[in-house]
């Protein structure tokens, strides 16, 4: 039993997904139970992973380049923990809304299980298949309310995502042409020989894969789909998209850079500078676009582009400190942004408007939710006792250490702009009395139990997580440490 744990983590939500379709009554219990089962399975591995070991599972007993293997090491453990933890909270948050039927939970579970599939698999073509499965489920989740705007947002995402994954697959084709294998660890072994003979093919495949993932991460020139998709989707789905799904693209990018292409080739073809430039551009672009948004969820969506820019800068610096900061910021952003989208969901259903200025007075009516919103947005800005500060600080330190002092100036400028747009929202929250406007068309016909525990508890948990990671950053860094030492030194700490 214990050797089969990696595959059981993927199968448990997938099995529950199809059972959910069959049962009308127990759909929520099944969904929650399957995710909790997966979390229990992951936590049985935690002591081995955190001590620097890794768990490899060969599917069907076929080893090496022939079969598909699942690997749980520092990096994949870290990302699967984010996916499962936030996935559970997303499911709990969706419970009170009755309009979410069986297909909603089916799609949610399929997307979560394929995310873990992307994270664990070592076969690069299998990664593509899981990613495409994840994307299909996510397109449908965005279009779930079946209103005009959501259908359009979903279609735009489908086109962009389809093009991105086609680029990724073409890059995989180039890799296979050079090395004759699809297992990432075996490709890495054979690629350095291929690099000497056919350098252009290696650069081509890296460029194709990086472009494909760039569309999925929504770096600046390829971000077109993100604001619509993230803001028009139902609020729990927005939290899922912004908190987790985008992070899967970052995981693939890190995995491909460090495991397949190895850090040496990465530095040799100068792509760390490209990542850094893209990071800076999307940082400034996201921040300045968020500043002018009137729609609350659209503001949060542009803020995602802003924060992912910081992660890319950390990856581009590429030193130990920079990577630690980048991965820690991935965790922090996942927590903060899901908290903000959960809060935005409650604000929109309570006030009946998506406009920022329609929120005035919400702060007096629901102080607890507002407090959580303020905690998370202070973290986004990067104000000391909250977790966002710790990771931004690490990235700034890394930038100074590596001699890129101008990056610190840019990050601080973007933080100042972030402060401007988040403080604008907070100011409105404590403004005049609450006006009950009409429900917007696409949020209509939902039945909400006001003050429901299931909706507010995930927010409190996430806000507590923000404070905890901010006060004790070593807690988060100890989670990131095995991943960083795996990436940079290929050894256990």
């Amino acid at each position, binding site marked *: 039993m214990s050797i089969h744990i990696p595959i059981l983590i993927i199968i448990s939500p997938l099995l529950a997904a199809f059972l959910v379709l069959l049962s009308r009554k127990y759909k929520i219990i099944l969904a929650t139970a399957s995710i909790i089962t997966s979390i229990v399975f992951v936590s049985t591995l935690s002591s081995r992973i955190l001590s620097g070991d890794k768990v490899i599972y060969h599917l069907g007993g076929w080893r090496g380049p022939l079969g598909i293997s699942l690997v749980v090491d520092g990096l994949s453990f870290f990302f699967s923990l984010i996916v499962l933890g936030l996935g559970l909270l997303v499911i709990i948050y969706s419970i009170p809304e009755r309009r979410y039927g069986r297909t909603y939970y089916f799609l949610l579970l399929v997307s979560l299980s394929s995310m873990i599939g992307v994270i664990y698999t070592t076969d690069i*073509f299998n990664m593509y*298949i899981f990613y*495409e499965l994840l994307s*299909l489920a996510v*397109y*449908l989740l965005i*279009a779930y309310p*079946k*209103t*005009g*705007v959501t*259908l*359009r947002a*979903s*279609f735009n995402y*489908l*086109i962009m995502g*389809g*093009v991105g994954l*086609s680029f990724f*697959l*073409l890059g995989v*084709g180039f890799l*296979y*042409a050079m090395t004759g294998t*699809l297992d990432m660890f075996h490709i890495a072994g054979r690629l350095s020989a291929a690099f000497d003979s056919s350098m252009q093919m290696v650069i081509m495949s890296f460029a194709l894969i990086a472009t494909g993932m760039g569309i999925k991460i929504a770096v600046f020139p390829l971000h077109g789909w993100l604001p619509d998709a993230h803001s028009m989707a139902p609020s729990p789905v927005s939290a899922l998209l912004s908190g987790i799904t985008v992070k899967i693209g970052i995981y693939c990018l890190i995995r491909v850079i460090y495991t397949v292409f190895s850090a040496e080739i990465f530095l040799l073809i100068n792509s760390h500078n490209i990542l850094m430039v893209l990071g800076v551009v999307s940082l400034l672009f996201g921040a300045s676009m968020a500043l002018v948004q009137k729609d609350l969820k659209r503001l949060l969506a542009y803020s995602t582009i802003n924060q992912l820019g910081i992660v890319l800068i950390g990856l581009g610096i590429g030193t130990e400190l920079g990577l630690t900061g980048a991965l820690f910021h991935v965790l922090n952003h996942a927590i903060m942004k899901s908290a903000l989208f959960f809060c935005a969901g409650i604000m929109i259903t309570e006030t009946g408007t998506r406009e920022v200025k329609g929120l005035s007075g919400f702060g007096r009516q629901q102080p607890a939710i507002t407090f959580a919103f303020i905690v998370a947005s202070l973290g986004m800005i990067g104000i000391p006792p909250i977790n966002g500060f710790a990771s931004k600080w690490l990235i700034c330190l890394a930038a100074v250490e590596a001699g890129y002092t101008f990056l610190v100036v840019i990050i601080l400028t973007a933080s100042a702009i972030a402060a401007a747009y988040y403080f604008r929202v907070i100011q409105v929250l404590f403004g005049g009395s609450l006006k009950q406007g009409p429900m917007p068309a696409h949020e209509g016909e939902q039945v909400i139990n006001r003050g429901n525990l299931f909706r507010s508890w995930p927010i409190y948990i996430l806000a507590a997580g923000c404070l905890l990671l901010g006060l004790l950053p070593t807690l988060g860094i100890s989670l990131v440490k095995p991943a960083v030492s795996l990436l940079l030194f290929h050894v256990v700490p």
Partner: protein
Amino acid sequence: MTPINISLLVFMIGLYGVMSKNNLIKKIMGLTIMNGGIVLFFISIGYREAGLAPILEKGTIDGTTTIVVDPLPQALMLTAIVIGISVTALALALIVKIYSKYKTLDIQQLSKER
């Protein structure tokens, strides 16, 4: 023109279609053409001049080497075709819904609607 160059050309034609066409159906056609380019690319990687199907029959191993085509890309492309079909099906379903809401498939007009 090697088969690989042609396949990349087909890929680029598909990309042009996705990027420049205003009609939603034509965008999906572009996506399908891109997919076709990728299939052609993988198949031409695995192609060997005068290669046979990679089937090992009893008694054929007699010391002489025979050239066989690489079966792995073909197996991969069966999967990729199936995935491409599901993406196309989902996209067309979305298009049907969009058309019944807006009565147009032109992306310029759709972006004006609120």
